[in-house]
Protein backbone atom coordinates (compact mmCIF):
# COMPACT_ATOMS: atom_id res chain seq x y z
CA UNK A 1 0.00 0.00 0.00
CA UNK A 2 2.64 2.48 1.11
CA UNK A 3 4.77 1.27 -1.72
CA UNK A 4 2.04 2.06 -4.23
CA UNK A 5 1.64 5.58 -2.85
CA UNK A 6 5.37 6.22 -2.91
CA UNK A 7 5.50 4.80 -6.39
CA UNK A 8 2.81 7.13 -7.69
CA UNK A 9 4.51 10.11 -6.03
CA UNK A 10 7.76 9.11 -7.66
CA UNK A 11 6.01 8.81 -11.02
CA UNK A 12 4.43 12.22 -10.61
CA UNK A 13 7.80 13.70 -9.69
CA UNK A 14 9.36 12.06 -12.68
CA UNK A 15 6.71 13.49 -14.97
CA UNK A 16 7.23 16.97 -13.60
CA UNK A 17 10.99 16.81 -13.94
CA UNK A 18 10.76 15.41 -17.44
CA UNK A 19 8.46 18.30 -18.43
CA UNK A 20 10.85 20.83 -16.98
CA UNK A 21 13.70 19.05 -18.71
CA UNK A 22 11.84 19.28 -22.00
CA UNK A 23 11.24 22.98 -21.50
CA UNK A 24 14.94 23.41 -20.85
CA UNK A 25 15.82 21.54 -24.01
CA UNK A 26 13.32 23.57 -25.98
CA UNK A 27 14.86 26.80 -24.67
CA UNK A 28 18.35 25.70 -25.63
CA UNK A 29 16.98 24.75 -29.03
CA UNK A 30 15.36 28.17 -29.44
CA UNK A 31 18.68 29.77 -28.58
CA UNK A 32 20.45 27.61 -31.15
CA UNK A 33 17.82 28.50 -33.74
CA UNK A 34 18.23 32.22 -33.11
CA UNK A 35 22.02 31.90 -33.23
CA UNK A 36 21.79 29.90 -36.44
CA UNK A 37 19.47 32.37 -38.12
CA UNK A 38 22.24 34.26 -39.90
CA UNK A 39 22.20 31.99 -42.93
CA UNK A 40 18.43 32.22 -43.31
CA UNK A 41 18.43 36.02 -43.31
CA UNK A 42 21.44 36.24 -45.63
CA UNK A 43 19.80 33.85 -48.06
CA UNK A 44 16.32 35.27 -47.78
CA UNK A 45 15.01 33.00 -50.54
CA UNK A 46 15.09 30.20 -47.96
CA UNK A 47 12.57 32.09 -45.84
CA UNK A 48 10.52 33.12 -48.87
CA UNK A 49 10.17 29.49 -49.85
CA UNK A 50 8.85 28.61 -46.38
CA UNK A 51 6.57 31.66 -46.38
CA UNK A 52 4.77 30.00 -49.24
CA UNK A 53 4.03 26.95 -47.12
CA UNK A 54 3.25 28.71 -43.84
CA UNK A 55 1.64 31.87 -45.20
CA UNK A 56 0.17 31.43 -48.66
CA UNK A 57 -1.23 27.98 -47.94
CA UNK A 58 -2.89 29.28 -44.75
CA UNK A 59 -4.64 32.12 -46.60
CA UNK A 60 -7.79 30.22 -47.45
CA UNK A 61 -8.47 28.71 -44.04
CA UNK A 62 -7.74 32.04 -42.36
CA UNK A 63 -9.97 34.04 -44.72
CA UNK A 64 -12.89 31.65 -44.62
CA UNK A 65 -12.74 31.23 -40.84
CA UNK A 66 -12.35 34.97 -40.37
CA UNK A 67 -15.41 35.65 -42.47
CA UNK A 68 -17.54 33.17 -40.57
CA UNK A 69 -16.32 34.22 -37.14
CA UNK A 70 -17.09 37.84 -38.05
CA UNK A 71 -20.56 36.95 -39.27
CA UNK A 72 -21.33 34.89 -36.18
CA UNK A 73 -20.10 37.74 -33.99
CA UNK A 74 -22.32 40.13 -35.93
CA UNK A 75 -25.40 37.99 -35.39
CA UNK A 76 -24.75 37.07 -31.76
CA UNK A 77 -23.61 40.44 -30.52
CA UNK A 78 -26.35 42.33 -32.34
CA UNK A 79 -28.89 40.05 -30.74
CA UNK A 80 -27.40 40.67 -27.28
CA UNK A 81 -26.83 44.39 -27.72
CA UNK A 82 -30.34 44.83 -29.01
CA UNK A 83 -31.67 43.66 -25.64
CA UNK A 84 -29.97 46.64 -24.03
CA UNK A 85 -31.06 48.93 -26.79
CA UNK A 86 -27.51 49.41 -27.98
CA UNK A 87 -27.72 47.67 -31.33
CA UNK A 88 -25.86 50.52 -32.99
CA UNK A 89 -22.73 49.72 -30.99
CA UNK A 90 -22.31 46.59 -33.07
CA UNK A 91 -19.44 47.96 -35.16
CA UNK A 92 -17.28 48.80 -32.18
CA UNK A 93 -18.01 45.58 -30.34
CA UNK A 94 -17.28 43.36 -33.34
CA UNK A 95 -14.07 45.23 -34.11
CA UNK A 96 -12.88 45.20 -30.52
CA UNK A 97 -13.53 41.49 -30.02
CA UNK A 98 -11.70 40.69 -33.23
CA UNK A 99 -8.77 43.04 -32.95
CA UNK A 100 -8.04 42.46 -29.29
CA UNK A 101 -8.86 38.81 -28.80
CA UNK A 102 -10.37 36.64 -31.48
CA UNK A 103 -8.19 37.75 -34.37
CA UNK A 104 -4.84 36.91 -32.79
CA UNK A 105 -6.07 33.88 -30.85
CA UNK A 106 -8.23 32.11 -33.41
CA UNK A 107 -5.79 32.87 -36.22
CA UNK A 108 -2.99 31.43 -34.07
CA UNK A 109 -5.01 28.29 -33.30
CA UNK A 110 -5.75 27.80 -36.99
CA UNK A 111 -2.15 28.56 -37.84
CA UNK A 112 -0.94 25.95 -35.35
CA UNK A 113 -3.14 23.28 -36.85
CA UNK A 114 -2.47 24.23 -40.47
CA UNK A 115 1.13 25.44 -40.64
CA UNK A 116 2.53 24.33 -37.28
CA UNK A 117 1.56 20.71 -37.77
CA UNK A 118 2.89 20.82 -41.34
CA UNK A 119 6.24 22.15 -40.14
CA UNK A 120 6.48 19.45 -37.47
CA UNK A 121 5.50 16.70 -39.87
CA UNK A 122 7.95 17.89 -42.49
CA UNK A 123 10.93 18.22 -40.15
CA UNK A 124 9.95 15.02 -38.33
CA UNK A 125 9.84 13.15 -41.63
CA UNK A 126 13.24 14.55 -42.53
CA UNK A 127 14.47 13.22 -39.19
CA UNK A 128 12.83 9.81 -39.72
CA UNK A 129 14.23 9.41 -43.24
CA UNK A 130 17.68 10.53 -42.07
CA UNK A 131 17.60 13.63 -44.28
CA UNK A 132 18.73 15.71 -41.30
CA UNK A 133 21.61 13.32 -40.60
CA UNK A 134 22.53 13.36 -44.28
CA UNK A 135 22.60 17.14 -44.17
CA UNK A 136 24.86 17.10 -41.12
CA UNK A 137 27.19 14.70 -42.87
CA UNK A 138 27.32 17.08 -45.83
CA UNK A 139 28.64 19.69 -43.42
CA UNK A 140 25.38 21.64 -43.51
CA UNK A 141 23.84 22.56 -40.18
CA UNK A 142 20.19 21.48 -40.27
CA UNK A 143 19.27 24.03 -37.61
CA UNK A 144 20.47 26.84 -39.85
CA UNK A 145 19.28 25.33 -43.11
CA UNK A 146 15.98 23.66 -42.16
CA UNK A 147 14.83 24.93 -38.77
CA UNK A 148 15.63 28.64 -38.85
CA UNK A 149 13.89 29.45 -42.17
CA UNK A 150 10.74 27.67 -41.03
CA UNK A 151 10.83 29.34 -37.64
CA UNK A 152 11.16 32.81 -39.12
CA UNK A 153 8.57 32.22 -41.80
CA UNK A 154 6.13 31.36 -39.01
CA UNK A 155 7.09 34.45 -37.03
CA UNK A 156 6.57 36.64 -40.11
CA UNK A 157 3.35 35.00 -41.28
CA UNK A 158 1.48 35.04 -37.99
CA UNK A 159 0.88 38.80 -37.54
CA UNK A 160 -0.06 39.15 -41.21
CA UNK A 161 -2.51 36.28 -40.99
CA UNK A 162 -3.98 37.59 -37.74
CA UNK A 163 -4.46 41.03 -39.30
CA UNK A 164 -6.11 39.42 -42.31
CA UNK A 165 -8.34 37.39 -40.02
CA UNK A 166 -9.46 40.51 -38.13
CA UNK A 167 -9.97 42.54 -41.30
CA UNK A 168 -12.06 39.86 -42.98
CA UNK A 169 -13.90 39.23 -39.72
CA UNK A 170 -14.84 42.89 -39.52
CA UNK A 171 -16.02 42.66 -43.11
CA UNK A 172 -18.12 39.63 -42.10
CA UNK A 173 -19.61 41.64 -39.24
CA UNK A 174 -20.29 44.45 -41.69
CA UNK A 175 -22.12 42.06 -44.02
CA UNK A 176 -24.39 40.90 -41.22
CA UNK A 177 -24.94 44.20 -39.42
CA UNK A 178 -25.20 46.59 -42.34
CA UNK A 179 -26.24 44.47 -45.31
CA UNK A 180 -28.45 41.93 -43.58
CA UNK A 181 -29.80 43.63 -40.45
CA UNK A 182 -29.71 47.15 -41.77
CA UNK A 183 -27.67 49.05 -39.20
CA UNK A 184 -26.70 52.39 -40.67
CA UNK A 185 -23.38 52.11 -42.47
CA UNK A 186 -22.02 55.41 -41.19
CA UNK A 187 -22.93 54.51 -37.61
CA UNK A 188 -21.27 51.15 -38.01
CA UNK A 189 -17.90 52.57 -39.03
CA UNK A 190 -17.88 55.66 -36.84
CA UNK A 191 -18.93 53.64 -33.81
CA UNK A 192 -16.03 51.34 -34.59
CA UNK A 193 -13.54 54.17 -34.95
CA UNK A 194 -14.76 55.73 -31.72
CA UNK A 195 -14.28 52.63 -29.65
CA UNK A 196 -11.13 51.17 -31.19
CA UNK A 197 -7.94 52.85 -30.11
CA UNK A 198 -4.97 52.42 -32.39
CA UNK A 199 -2.29 52.01 -29.77
CA UNK A 200 -4.24 50.27 -27.06
CA UNK A 201 -6.23 47.87 -29.19
CA UNK A 202 -4.64 47.41 -32.57
CA UNK A 203 -0.98 47.59 -31.62
CA UNK A 204 -1.58 45.31 -28.65
CA UNK A 205 -3.39 42.86 -30.93
CA UNK A 206 -0.43 42.85 -33.29
CA UNK A 207 1.97 42.33 -30.38
CA UNK A 208 -0.13 39.37 -29.29
CA UNK A 209 -0.03 37.78 -32.71
CA UNK A 210 3.74 38.27 -32.91
CA UNK A 211 4.14 36.48 -29.58
CA UNK A 212 1.86 33.67 -30.77
CA UNK A 213 3.88 33.44 -33.97
CA UNK A 214 7.07 32.89 -31.99
CA UNK A 215 5.39 30.40 -29.65
CA UNK A 216 3.76 28.28 -32.36
CA UNK A 217 6.80 28.27 -34.63
CA UNK A 218 9.06 27.43 -31.73
CA UNK A 219 6.90 24.50 -30.65
CA UNK A 220 6.51 23.27 -34.22
CA UNK A 221 10.20 23.22 -35.09
CA UNK A 222 11.18 21.80 -31.71
CA UNK A 223 8.69 18.94 -31.87
CA UNK A 224 9.62 18.17 -35.46
CA UNK A 225 13.34 18.25 -34.86
CA UNK A 226 13.09 16.04 -31.81
CA UNK A 227 10.48 13.63 -33.14
CA UNK A 228 11.22 9.96 -32.65
CA UNK A 229 12.53 8.77 -36.03
CA UNK A 230 9.58 6.60 -36.99
CA UNK A 231 6.11 6.93 -38.44
CA UNK A 232 4.56 6.82 -34.95
CA UNK A 233 7.11 9.32 -33.71
CA UNK A 234 6.21 11.83 -36.40
CA UNK A 235 2.48 11.48 -35.91
CA UNK A 236 2.86 11.79 -32.13
CA UNK A 237 5.01 14.88 -32.57
CA UNK A 238 2.43 16.44 -34.90
CA UNK A 239 -0.31 15.87 -32.37
CA UNK A 240 1.88 17.30 -29.63
CA UNK A 241 2.51 20.40 -31.70
CA UNK A 242 -1.20 21.13 -32.10
CA UNK A 243 -2.07 20.39 -28.47
CA UNK A 244 0.89 22.18 -26.92
CA UNK A 245 0.47 25.16 -29.24
CA UNK A 246 -3.20 25.50 -28.38
CA UNK A 247 -2.49 25.44 -24.65
CA UNK A 248 0.47 27.78 -25.00
CA UNK A 249 -1.52 30.24 -27.11
CA UNK A 250 -4.36 30.40 -24.62
CA UNK A 251 -2.03 30.68 -21.62
CA UNK A 252 0.09 33.33 -23.29
CA UNK A 253 -3.08 35.16 -24.30
CA UNK A 254 -4.21 35.30 -20.71
CA UNK A 255 -0.87 36.64 -19.51
CA UNK A 256 -0.65 39.19 -22.31
CA UNK A 257 -4.23 40.34 -21.83
CA UNK A 258 -3.62 40.74 -18.12
CA UNK A 259 -0.60 42.92 -18.86
CA UNK A 260 -2.13 44.93 -21.67
CA UNK A 261 -5.70 45.66 -20.81
CA UNK A 262 -5.96 45.77 -17.04
CA UNK A 263 -3.45 48.52 -16.41
CA UNK A 264 -6.02 51.22 -17.13
Amino acid at each position, binding site marked *: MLEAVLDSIARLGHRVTSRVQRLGRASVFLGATLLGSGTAWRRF*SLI*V*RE*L*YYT*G*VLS*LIIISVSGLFVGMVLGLQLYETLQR*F*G*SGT*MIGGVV*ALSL*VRELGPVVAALLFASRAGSAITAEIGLMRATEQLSAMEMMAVDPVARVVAPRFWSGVI*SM*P*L*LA*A*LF*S*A*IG*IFGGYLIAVVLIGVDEGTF*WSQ*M*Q*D*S*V*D*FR*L*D*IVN*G*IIKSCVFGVVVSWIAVFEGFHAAPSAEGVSAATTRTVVTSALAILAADFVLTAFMFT*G*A
Partner: protein
Amino acid sequence: MKRTTLDLWVGFFVAIGLASLLFLALKVGSLTPSSSSESYALQARFGNIGGLKVRAPIKSAGVVVGRVKDIRFDQESYLAIVTLDVNANYQFPRDTFATINTSGLLGEQYVGFEAGGDEVMLKSGDVIKKTQDAMVLEKLISQFMYNKASEDDGK
Protein backbone atom coordinates in the same frame (compact mmCIF):
# COMPACT_ATOMS: atom_id res chain seq x y z
CA MET B 1 7.15 24.95 -58.19
CA LYS B 2 9.02 27.55 -60.15
CA ARG B 3 10.92 30.08 -58.13
CA THR B 4 9.15 33.02 -59.79
CA THR B 5 5.65 31.65 -59.16
CA LEU B 6 6.58 31.06 -55.57
CA ASP B 7 7.88 34.60 -55.19
CA LEU B 8 4.71 35.91 -56.75
CA TRP B 9 2.49 34.05 -54.32
CA VAL B 10 4.54 35.07 -51.32
CA GLY B 11 4.48 38.67 -52.52
CA PHE B 12 0.72 38.43 -52.87
CA PHE B 13 0.46 37.04 -49.35
CA VAL B 14 2.61 39.76 -47.81
CA ALA B 15 0.70 42.44 -49.72
CA ILE B 16 -2.64 41.11 -48.44
CA GLY B 17 -1.30 40.97 -44.90
CA LEU B 18 0.02 44.51 -45.02
CA ALA B 19 -3.20 45.75 -46.60
CA SER B 20 -5.11 44.19 -43.70
CA LEU B 21 -2.84 45.89 -41.19
CA LEU B 22 -3.37 49.20 -42.99
CA PHE B 23 -7.11 48.65 -43.01
CA LEU B 24 -7.09 47.97 -39.27
CA ALA B 25 -4.97 51.02 -38.59
CA LEU B 26 -6.83 53.52 -40.74
CA LYS B 27 -10.38 52.36 -41.15
CA VAL B 28 -10.89 50.54 -37.84
CA GLY B 29 -8.53 52.29 -35.47
CA SER B 30 -8.82 55.70 -37.12
CA LEU B 31 -5.13 56.34 -36.81
CA THR B 32 -4.84 59.90 -38.00
CA PRO B 33 -1.88 62.22 -37.77
CA SER B 34 -3.81 64.61 -35.55
CA SER B 35 -4.06 62.05 -32.75
CA SER B 36 -0.42 62.65 -31.96
CA SER B 37 -0.71 66.44 -31.98
CA GLU B 38 0.17 68.78 -29.15
CA SER B 39 -1.90 68.82 -26.02
CA TYR B 40 -1.98 70.50 -22.64
CA ALA B 41 -2.83 69.03 -19.25
CA LEU B 42 -5.63 70.16 -16.93
CA GLN B 43 -6.68 68.75 -13.62
CA ALA B 44 -10.09 68.16 -12.17
CA ARG B 45 -11.21 66.78 -8.81
CA PHE B 46 -14.18 64.53 -8.48
CA GLY B 47 -15.89 63.03 -5.45
CA ASN B 48 -16.70 59.94 -7.50
CA ILE B 49 -15.44 59.06 -10.95
CA GLY B 50 -17.65 55.99 -11.34
CA GLY B 51 -16.16 53.79 -14.05
CA LEU B 52 -13.97 56.40 -15.72
CA LYS B 53 -10.83 54.89 -17.24
CA VAL B 54 -7.51 56.24 -18.36
CA ARG B 55 -7.67 57.16 -22.09
CA ALA B 56 -11.41 57.73 -21.89
CA PRO B 57 -12.44 60.53 -24.24
CA ILE B 58 -13.10 64.13 -23.22
CA LYS B 59 -16.00 65.51 -25.17
CA SER B 60 -17.34 68.99 -25.55
CA ALA B 61 -20.63 69.40 -27.35
CA GLY B 62 -20.17 65.73 -28.27
CA VAL B 63 -16.84 66.29 -30.04
CA VAL B 64 -13.76 64.51 -28.72
CA VAL B 65 -11.34 67.20 -27.57
CA GLY B 66 -8.92 65.14 -25.51
CA ARG B 67 -8.29 62.06 -23.43
CA VAL B 68 -7.99 61.21 -19.75
CA LYS B 69 -4.30 60.91 -19.01
CA ASP B 70 -4.14 59.83 -15.41
CA ILE B 71 -6.40 59.08 -12.44
CA ARG B 72 -5.10 59.33 -8.88
CA PHE B 73 -6.59 59.30 -5.42
CA ASP B 74 -5.70 62.25 -3.23
CA GLN B 75 -5.05 61.09 0.32
CA GLU B 76 -5.70 64.51 1.84
CA SER B 77 -8.94 65.58 0.24
CA TYR B 78 -10.19 62.02 -0.38
CA LEU B 79 -11.01 63.09 -3.91
CA ALA B 80 -10.07 61.60 -7.24
CA ILE B 81 -7.65 63.77 -9.18
CA VAL B 82 -8.08 63.29 -12.90
CA THR B 83 -5.45 64.61 -15.28
CA LEU B 84 -6.95 65.57 -18.62
CA ASP B 85 -4.98 65.85 -21.84
CA VAL B 86 -6.75 68.42 -23.98
CA ASN B 87 -5.93 68.95 -27.63
CA ALA B 88 -3.98 72.20 -28.01
CA ASN B 89 -6.32 73.28 -30.81
CA TYR B 90 -9.12 73.74 -28.31
CA GLN B 91 -9.24 76.38 -25.56
CA PHE B 92 -11.76 76.45 -22.75
CA PRO B 93 -12.80 79.27 -20.40
CA ARG B 94 -11.76 79.13 -16.77
CA ASP B 95 -15.25 78.41 -15.52
CA THR B 96 -15.69 75.34 -17.71
CA PHE B 97 -17.88 72.72 -16.08
CA ALA B 98 -16.41 69.18 -16.14
CA THR B 99 -18.84 66.29 -15.75
CA ILE B 100 -18.53 62.56 -15.92
CA ASN B 101 -21.13 61.16 -18.25
CA THR B 102 -22.11 57.83 -19.65
CA SER B 103 -22.65 57.22 -23.34
CA GLY B 104 -25.93 55.38 -23.52
CA LEU B 105 -27.38 53.62 -20.54
CA LEU B 106 -24.52 51.18 -20.00
CA GLY B 107 -21.86 52.61 -22.26
CA GLU B 108 -18.39 53.82 -21.53
CA GLN B 109 -17.89 56.81 -19.33
CA TYR B 110 -16.34 60.00 -20.61
CA VAL B 111 -15.55 63.47 -19.34
CA GLY B 112 -17.83 66.19 -20.66
CA PHE B 113 -16.84 69.86 -20.88
CA GLU B 114 -19.47 72.55 -20.79
CA ALA B 115 -17.85 75.87 -21.57
CA GLY B 116 -18.68 78.82 -19.29
CA GLY B 117 -18.57 82.52 -20.04
CA ASP B 118 -15.25 83.56 -18.55
CA GLU B 119 -12.90 85.61 -20.73
CA VAL B 120 -9.76 83.96 -19.34
CA MET B 121 -8.87 80.63 -20.84
CA LEU B 122 -7.54 77.58 -18.95
CA LYS B 123 -3.78 77.07 -19.22
CA SER B 124 -1.67 73.97 -18.92
CA GLY B 125 -1.61 72.77 -15.29
CA ASP B 126 -4.76 74.64 -14.26
CA VAL B 127 -7.39 72.99 -12.11
CA ILE B 128 -11.01 72.96 -13.20
CA LYS B 129 -13.08 74.21 -10.27
CA LYS B 130 -16.55 73.21 -11.28
CA THR B 131 -17.04 69.47 -11.55
CA GLN B 132 -19.88 67.05 -11.31
CA ASP B 133 -19.42 63.46 -10.16
CA ALA B 134 -20.37 60.41 -12.11
CA MET B 135 -23.89 59.27 -11.73
CA VAL B 136 -23.91 55.93 -9.99
CA LEU B 137 -26.71 53.76 -11.20
CA GLU B 138 -27.33 52.08 -7.86
CA LYS B 139 -27.80 55.46 -6.17
CA LEU B 140 -30.22 56.59 -8.86
CA ILE B 141 -32.20 53.43 -8.56
CA SER B 142 -32.39 53.51 -4.77
CA GLN B 143 -33.39 57.16 -4.95
CA PHE B 144 -36.11 56.30 -7.44
CA MET B 145 -37.33 53.41 -5.32
CA TYR B 146 -37.36 55.59 -2.23
CA ASN B 147 -39.40 58.27 -3.99
CA LYS B 148 -41.75 55.71 -5.40
CA ALA B 149 -42.19 54.15 -1.98
CA SER B 150 -42.97 57.50 -0.35
CA GLU B 151 -45.44 58.31 -3.15
CA ASP B 152 -47.19 55.03 -2.53
CA ASP B 153 -47.30 55.77 1.20
CA GLY B 154 -48.88 59.14 0.52
CA LYS B 155 -51.86 57.58 -1.24
